[in-house]
């Protein structure tokens, strides 16, 4: 019997909105075993992502009740009653104290300096003291936050749906991956000692200049020549004359000389460049030499520290090597080039691989994948799914796979949990759910997907579940699926259905599991019901 890695029990959360609280999850129970791939499937707005975000402590909702245990440790945090009281009272006292302090500042200025200053001091002292008390009252909370920071990445990682928004567009791949590893102390010892790196950074402007000379000799020598000309012109006093000839020298002569050599399009492209160069030269010749010198000195002084700091912050070769080996593990072709790329330079599949690499870099025991392939093409999706399966097989990472695609679930998962409108309606092994579903929603969902299977009878009209997912604002006493269900009766409207174990390890939340044994019959009822639904005119 594999041990339980993640246990979510009776989770109930709500979002506070201007229209009042919206209950997003109603008593969610979910288990993930060690090394298991658990699928969480449902349509949009059913609470799949909220469940996963609550698990890693990133959700912005309020948790009403329930527990999330990771290897027996509680991940949810709630202040004790006394702590809550302390925080509340200290918060109020601080606010009043600060307000009073501000009033007495004016008092001191406008009415009576001595009286004002005395009161100001008293109130300042009171507000600082109460703030400190409140801060002490949050000790447990801070400890928990620190613990969650350790859990995220180290123990539980998450892959988000849209890799472009999850990756930072301003940093290179190696920077982003190494950041996670630094945060969790996973980087190896640096190859170069610190003193050496400081020295390297100090001479980095020189090395940069050398590199520019080597890589772009023409541009570099052109710039140097212009600078030399300007300096000489100033020193020998012919700058004033020279500035009048600049336009002729820089634009007219090259243009007329090269008319025969260059094509019109290249000339057109060179023209703005020539005008810009002429303008710069004109300005440099026109201003006094002292002003020019001052500008050069100041801009150099501003630029040097930036160049040095950037060089010092560069990644150590050993760390780069570590990142490369991680990228190799997720089968990114040519990782040596990829580490220096920015996210926009990568294709969608590569971005998702980088995302997976980042999440696997600290070797977590549980990977939460929130729609990891929804944004990808099918052939790329196949690659990513295979990669995730391989990672599970090699490292024994458990995966909580959140998706709306039952096909992906069938491909990947050992067990499935089906969610509908914030509650879990069916769970069991992949085999049980796909071949013997018992909750009417699961049955309807499975049938409403068009197949490419040739043997299955080709229906002209696709079977549907009438209606749509209910608004989360609506309150239901009973089963949330009852408006769309062909079997709904008074019981379904009034009483929430319990999770019934229809066979060992297979649970379904339905009052009428005795009527859902034959899948074809259920689909028949759905068809009849859908026709009636349309007749009633509720689209």
């Amino acid at each position, binding site marked *: 019997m594999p041990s339980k890695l993640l246990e979510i029990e009776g989770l109930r959360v709500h979002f506070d909105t201007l229209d009042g609280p919206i209950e997003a999850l109603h008593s969610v129970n979910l288990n993930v075993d060690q090394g298991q791939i658990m699928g969480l499937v449902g*349509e*949009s707005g059913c609470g799949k992502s909220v469940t996963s975000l609550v698990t890693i402590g990133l959700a912005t909702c309020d948790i009403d009740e329930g527990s999330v245990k990771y290897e027996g440790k509680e991940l949810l945090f709630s202040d004790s009653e006394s702590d809550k009281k302390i925080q509340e009272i200290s918060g109020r006292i601080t606010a009043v104290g600060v307000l009073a302090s501000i009033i007495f500042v004016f008092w001191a200025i406008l009415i009576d300096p001595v009286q004002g200053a005395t009161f100001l001091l008293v109130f300042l002292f009171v507000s600082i003291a109460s703030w400190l008390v409140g801060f002490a009252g949050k000790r447990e909370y801070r400890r928990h936050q620190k613990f969650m920071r350790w859990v995220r990445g180290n123990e539980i990682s998450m892959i988000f749906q849209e890799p472009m928004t999850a990756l930072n567009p301003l940093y290179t791949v190696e920077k982003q991956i190494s950041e996670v590893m630094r945060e969790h102390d996973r980087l190896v010892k640096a190859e170069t000692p610190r003193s050496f790196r400081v020295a390297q950074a100090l001479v980095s402007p020189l090395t940069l200049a050398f590199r520019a000379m080597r890589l772009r000799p023409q541009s570099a020598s052109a710039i140097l020549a212009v600078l030399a000309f300007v300096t000489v012109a100033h020193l020998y006093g012919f700058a004033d004359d020279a500035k009048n000839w600049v336009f002729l020298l820089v634009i007219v002569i090259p243009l007329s000389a090269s008319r025969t050599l260059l094509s019109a*399009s290249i000339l*057109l*492209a*060179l*023209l*703005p*460049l020539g005008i810009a160069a002429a303008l710069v030269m004109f300005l440099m010749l026109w201003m006094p030499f002292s002003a020019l010198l001052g500008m050069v000195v100041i801009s150099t002084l501003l630029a040097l520290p930036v160049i040095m700091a950037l060089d010092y912050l560069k990644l150590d070769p050993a760390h780069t090597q570590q990142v490369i080996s991680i990228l190799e593990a997720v089968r990114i*072709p040519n990782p040596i080039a990829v580490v220096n790329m920015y996210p926009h330079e990568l*294709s*969608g*599949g*590569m971005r998702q691989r980088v995302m997976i690499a980042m999440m696997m870099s600290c070797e977590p025991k549980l990977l939460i994948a929130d729609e990891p392939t929804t944004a990808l*093409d*099918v*052939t*790329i*999706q*196949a*690659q990513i*799914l*295979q990669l995730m*399966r*391989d990672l599970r*097989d090699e490292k024994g990472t458990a995966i909580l796979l959140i998706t*709306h*695609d*039952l*096909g*992906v*679930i*069938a*491909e990947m998962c050992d067990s499935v949990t089906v969610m509908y409108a914030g509650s879990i309606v069916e769970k069991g092994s*992949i*085999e049980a759910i*796909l*071949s013997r579903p018992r909750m009417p929603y699961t049955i*309807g*969902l*499975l049938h*409403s*997907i*068009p*197949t*490419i*299977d*040739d043997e299955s009878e080709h229906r*002209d*009209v*696709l*079977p*549907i*579940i*009438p209606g*749509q*997912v209910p608004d989360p604002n609506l309150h239901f006493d009973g089963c949330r699926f009852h408006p769309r269900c062909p079997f709904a009766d008074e019981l379904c409207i009034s009483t929430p259905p319990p999770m019934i174990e229809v066979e060992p390890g297979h649970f379904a939340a339905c009052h009428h599991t005795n009527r859902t044994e034959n899948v074809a019959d259920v689909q028949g009822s759905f068809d009849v019901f859908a026709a009636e639904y*349309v007749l009633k*005119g509720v*689209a």
Partner: protein
Amino acid sequence: MTHDSKTDEILLDIKGLRKWFPIKSGMLTTVKSYVRAVDGVDLQVIRGETLGIVGESGCGKTTLGRVILGLIPMTEGSVHYDGEDIRMMTNRDLRRRLQIVFQDPGGSMNPRMSVRSIVGEPLTVNGIAEGAELTQRVADLLASVGLKRDHMNRFPHEFSGGQKQRIALARALSLDPEFILLDEPTSALDVSVQAQVLNLLQEIQSKRDLTFVFITHALNVVNHVCERVAVMYLGKIVEIANTKDLFSKPAHPYTHALMSAIPEPSLDKVARRRIVLSGDVPSPANPPPGCRFHTRCPIAEEGLCDVEEPKLESIGEGHSVACHFPLGPGMKLPILGDDQNPPEDDDMPNTVLL
């Protein structure tokens, strides 16, 4: 879709269509090279049919659709609609006869317009109806897509994705066109809603005698909806066939890979061994020479596939394929990449049974 009176009248005739987008750079926007989004497409659409165009993102299927409708000018080639060159048709005439439903229903509607003005705008612009008559016509249109009359005064944000797509469809239907281009109409929808919209599309087509071109990346949807399917890869059509033929005996290796890559909610995994293509789709700005698929193809032959571009050739009734080595029925495609999960019984050869 079911359409009994099958006249083989060609409604839309596309010949040698090219759409190259220039890549501009430099100081004065000199054209460096071209993105060959659509690069030589020949296609006929028969009146009353539903033609599916499938392919991965970046293969040019959306560009093809937009060129057909005249939304963007073509670079080369011709599109004839009912014998008329679309470049010669006036915009008003074009829009009356050809309509489009876009992928993102929220993005294709003005959030400040009520449903009445969204659906009614084509009617007022064309001077067909106004006032009470307009309201009545909009109500009829909404009813035909399964919405209620009192939805008319609401705004797009008050609707769910499926309902928005219904509104977009009502707008496309408002001028009573003969041809509707459906550009990924269900990609943004949930599966249960997708099923509803697909059924609605079929119902409307049979009622109004419409011709559909259905652009999508989901092969399972194509199988359900379309009569003929064209598979696109990097701006070219690599295979075109009747849906039944394409799914029972696909001939192009890319079609094979595409079909095997679709995860299906069924358990018989052994029958559907996956072909996992390695690598990404090459950039259309710099397509590989020869056959464009040869960089990812498991049966590509050096010296032929990377040199000579295969032509779209007929291999059966209505079935054409652009491949030097088209696969016949029952032929096997060697698995490219590694198959990490071999089945339990060892007598299964390491090939895909087709």
